[in-house]
């Protein structure tokens, strides 16, 4: 499990998450990574979940907290790389209706207005 942060051209923040998000230290790391970009006023953020194999309700809570942090400021948060393993969670919870979801990081990056 790892949470890696970096920045892309155009003032876009990137968080790459790998492994299983089950509400432990790794979920805390994701929460802190999102809060870090909010603190540094990155108004555009991509969450690449390409390497995520499982996420539980606590992890969804963290994603949702990130969503509200960004929406409240009229900033943009995009998700990408939702693979087969976690697809059903997004379908059941209808989070695809809440988040701006893209297949690839490139598509997410291109979607920023």
């Amino acid at each position, binding site marked *: 499990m790892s949470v890696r942060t970096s920045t892309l051209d155009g003032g876009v923040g990137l968080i790459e998450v790998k492994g299983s998000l089950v509400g432990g230290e790794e979920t805390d790391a994701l929460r802190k990574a999102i809060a870090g970009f909010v603190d540094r006023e990155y108004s555009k953020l991509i969450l690449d979940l390409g390497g995520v194999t499982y996420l*539980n*309700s606590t992890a969804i809570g963290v994603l949702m907290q990130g969503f509200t942090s960004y929406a409240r400021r009229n900033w943009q948060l995009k998700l990408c790389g939702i693979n087969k393993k976690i697809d059903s969670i997004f379908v059941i919870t209808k989070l695809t209706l*809440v988040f701006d979801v893209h297949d690839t990081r490139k598509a997410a990056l291109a979607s920023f207005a």
Partner: protein
Amino acid sequence: MAEQALQTDQLQVLLGENRRLKHAVEELSILNELARAIGASLDPQEIIGTIVRKSLRAVNAEQGVIHLVDIHASDPMKTLVREMSSSHEHEHFRINQTLVGWMQLNRKPLLMNSPRTDPRFSGMKWDESIRSLLCVPLMIKSELKGVLTVYNKKDGLQFTDDDQRLLAIIAAQSGQVIENARLNEREKQLVKMQEELRLAARIQIELLPKSAPAVAGYDIAGKSIPAQSVGGDYFDFIQIDEHRLAFCLGDVSGKGLPASLLMSNVQATLRSHALMGLTAQECTSRSNRLLFQSTSAEKFVTLFYGILDLRDHTLLYANAGHEHPIIVSAKRAVLRLSTGGIMLGMLEEFPFQNDTVALNPGDIMVVFSDGVTEAMNADQAQFGDERLQEVIMSHEDESASVLIESIVDAIRSHVGATPQMDDITLMVVKRNRG
């Protein structure tokens, strides 16, 4: 003459030697008594009381106190045991932070026979009746755990280096006992917390339906197995009127006591809405709004809410981010109830929808929490939807409650020795054949 002087000198030496030996014997006897007293009792408070009393006797002081040092507590100094050497009323002296700070830094005995003029504590305000004090640290593995302080040497005398040495030995002997007392207190707190948790678990069990309602033409059952002593899953049956019965099964994000408190809140909200005769969609939307207003975005609830109408055997349902229930028909066709929206409490407004499904003779509807399908074995393989469907099909002739037990057994045999990570909750509604 010279011989007489020599004899006098020798006598003096012998007398001095005798005094020292007597003193050493007294010290040894005090330490021996102390060791015996420590070994004789299991009650930490009693043992510590003995330590303080023996210390007072050992150095001939008026008052003695043991304080525990807990740098993490709101009050870092806690008076553990205070003893007076006489029935005479004394003021209770308070050890102050400056003294504790000095002890933290120096970790060695402190002897003061005139505290008011002591340069190490200039400017410090002393209780008026403190004439002298002797203070020794209680250490465990080089950590300061407490402070033993004795005040005012009796008969107007001053504390000596011998007093200091003896009190330091007593402190060294007593450190572990003090630590045991601290651990004992912690254990008491833990026992109290566990008792409260047990009570919360009992309240929660009381809130879940004890039995399923008896409905003509149907066989209904529900069960919830929390992963911890209290859980975040819940299910409920609500008789709206003589024709309609509401079912709900929900999963609160997180686990343990916080999740269970939120769960109780959701249950109360849904019960009151259900009895108002609202549709599934209205009930879900209103509960969503209430939950959104009272929780952070991180806290949410997945919910399946269905209303079974016994007149036409239809189920009106709404789903807020919950696992899609399964209906297996008499002809073994599998239907998933997939209409739904996001979880409750995430967005203030969301267009939840009603959907209707007919329950035909022989249909088995299984509503479940993700603890069922996501139960993982040692190889990280989930129990999954397919296994669940297989178990339903292979037990289609069993009663609703036996079917639930069969599913639970199948989950247990799948996960093996892997501990249960999430609450497992199931509700089965079977319409009788023909």
